């Protein structure tokens, strides 16, 4: 076998260049096809990353802690004290870049025109600035200034629906600790610009002001934390769970099923793309290789007449496609590497920002080369390419020498 390869390798190599035009066409087909897969993959990953970052940095963070039962029924009975002791120590782990405590209460907001459902968010404005992008998204007025700031910051769209605005007052209503409805008017001090769902369903006020308003001392509903390095998520999560076994501690994947699903959907989508591109490539490969075999009919007849066995003809032709597709793959890898590198400084999509906002996409994408995906996709294309090229090769090997020899070159 090794001897046969040694004999056939130079022959296969030279045969590749007998019809340079066809060889070049195949190289282009394979390399552009692979490039589209590899480049699209990193583009999609960058887009997923950007949109995930954008969503998580609004409010979710990489994970949250609640009292048990709160997520099922977010009522004032399912609250917890601010973190202390072991949990506080765990939250101050260096892998957690920031964390915040919030009081989130379901309620309604009322203006002269309308009453709408809302989540009343009592926050610590200073801490929020380090973990949430909302303070930075205030486009009219200003964000809250302290924990006891009794102003309210709402979304632009909500203000529009309520027909209210900066400097006007709205009434917030929520159940209080006595099981009655607390009702209090708040000054609208800021309007933020985010995606519509966030704009519609959140109203921010100082956490102390919110606690006071419903008759709480210092209880909170939620701790959100940020873990910048993805690999740290699971270990930190288990550390937190150990520190507070009685609390409900979840990662963003459990908190935002939508985001987790779209994450895996996008990852699946690249395979659909791969299948499409590969089918087109396969047609190209099979066509050119069939043509190459057809043109050399007489020669294959000659080889068989001289005593070359059909499986060696198969090997020879397969070796040719292995080289050919292999070079196409290398070229595609090079092309992808270069184009990803060229764009690694960031692709600014702010021109499409309005469209992306709907999908909560970030505005600047940073395509990265994922070495594992890079190699796996390249290898996959190579092997699949060789596989489809087996068909023309089989044709060549099954030619009858007499018939093939009658076929004049």
């Amino acid at each position, binding site marked *: 076998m090794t*001897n046969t390869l040694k*004999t056939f390798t130079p*022959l296969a190599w*030279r*045969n590749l260049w*007998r019809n340079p035009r066809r060889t070049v066409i195949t190289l282009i087909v394979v390399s552009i096809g692979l490039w589209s897969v590899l480049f699209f993959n990193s583009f999609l990953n960058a887009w997923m990353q950007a949109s995930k970052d954008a969503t998580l940095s609004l409010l979710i963070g990489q994970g949250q802690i609640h009292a048990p039962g709160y997520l099922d029924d977010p009522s004032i009975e399912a609250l917890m004290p601010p973190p202390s002791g072991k949990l506080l120590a765990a939250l101050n782990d260096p892998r957690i870049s920031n964390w915040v405590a919030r009081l989130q209460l379901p309620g309604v907001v009322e203006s002269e025109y309308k009453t709408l459902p809302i989540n009343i968010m009592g926050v610590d404005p200073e801490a929020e600035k380090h973990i949430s992008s909302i303070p930075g998204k205030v486009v009219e007025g200003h964000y809250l200034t302290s924990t006891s700031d009794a102003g309210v910051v709402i979304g632009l769209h909500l203000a529009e629906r309520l027909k209210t605005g900066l400097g006007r007052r709205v009434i917030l209503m929520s159940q209080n600790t006595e099981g009655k409805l607390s009702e209090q008017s708040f000054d609208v001090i800021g309007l933020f610009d985010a995606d519509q769902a966030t704009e519609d369903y959140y109203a921010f006020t100082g956490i102390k002001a919110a606690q006071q308003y419903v008759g709480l001392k210092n209880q909170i509903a939620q701790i959100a934390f940020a873990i910048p390095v993805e690999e740290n998520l699971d270990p930190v999560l288990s550390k937190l769970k150990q520190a507070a076994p009685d609390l409900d501690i979840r990662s963003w994947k459990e908190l935002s099923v939508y985001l987790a699903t779209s994450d895996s959907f996008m990852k699946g989508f690249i395979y659909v793309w791969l299948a499409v591109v590969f089918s087109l490539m396969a047609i190209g490969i099979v066509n050119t290789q069939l043509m190459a075999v057809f043109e050399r009919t*007489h*020669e294959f007849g*000659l*080889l*068989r*007449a*001289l*005593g*070359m*066995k*059909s499986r*060696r003809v198969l090997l020879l032709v397969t070796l040719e496609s292995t080289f050919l597709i292999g070079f196409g793959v290398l070229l595609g890898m090079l092309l992808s590497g270069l184009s990803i590198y060229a764009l690694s400084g960031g692709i600014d999509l702010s021109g499409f920002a309005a469209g992306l906002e709907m999908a909560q996409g970030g505005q600047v994408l940073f395509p990265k080369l994922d070495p594992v995906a890079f190699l796996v996709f390249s290898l996959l294309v190579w092997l699949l390419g060789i596989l489809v090229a087996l068909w023309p090769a089989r044709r060549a090997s099954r030619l009858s*020498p*007499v018939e093939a*020899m009658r076929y*004049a*070159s």
Partner: protein
Amino acid sequence: MKTPNVTCRGVGKVFGKGELAVKALVDVDLDIMPGDFATLAGPSGSGKTTLLNMVGALDTPTSGEVTIEGQPLGKLNKSELSDLRLNRIGFVFQAYNLIPVLSARENIEFVMELQGIPANERKTRAQQVLAEVGLKGLDNRRPSELSGGQQQRVAIARALVSRPSIVLADEPTANLDSKTTSELVALMYRLNQELGITFLIGTHDPRVMEHSRRHIELLDGRIASDTKI
């Protein structure tokens, strides 16, 4: 009594079926003896190529039996027939005999590579046969850089490099001018005389027949005459 290199006993070949059936060979009996320099002639369509294909283990007869060096071909499978062609039979076809991407020497070495002969031996033997056919120094030329006659010489060199039981040549001079034809036949004849290579040459060409030591005439798939000269 010498044993024949090739025997045909009652060999028949029918192409196609029913109304369209063509009897290309009918009941051919033939012995090719060691050292024969035989020409196979006959009008177009008389069955020359078909008979050479049978003897060369390229095609199987519909009746009768071909035997090479005492080995009945009917008992061999495809792979064994390939090996037989590779090791025991030399072929020279009308044209396009060579692998275009290989040089003269590489074309000859290629068959030896298939035979599993080690590299150093391949090289010396290829150079030796190239010298025998008068192509010394043209080792590294590709077929496209050789004249038609030179290409046929390379094919002859390749055919005889493994000292086959028989060299089969089907119209080897059909594409050559008369001077080149004469030189090529003279070469084959010399190889026959000096090295004892057995030849069976299918041809129309009187210049080829000039050197013939045995002349076989086919007519409608039957042997019409078989004369020693």
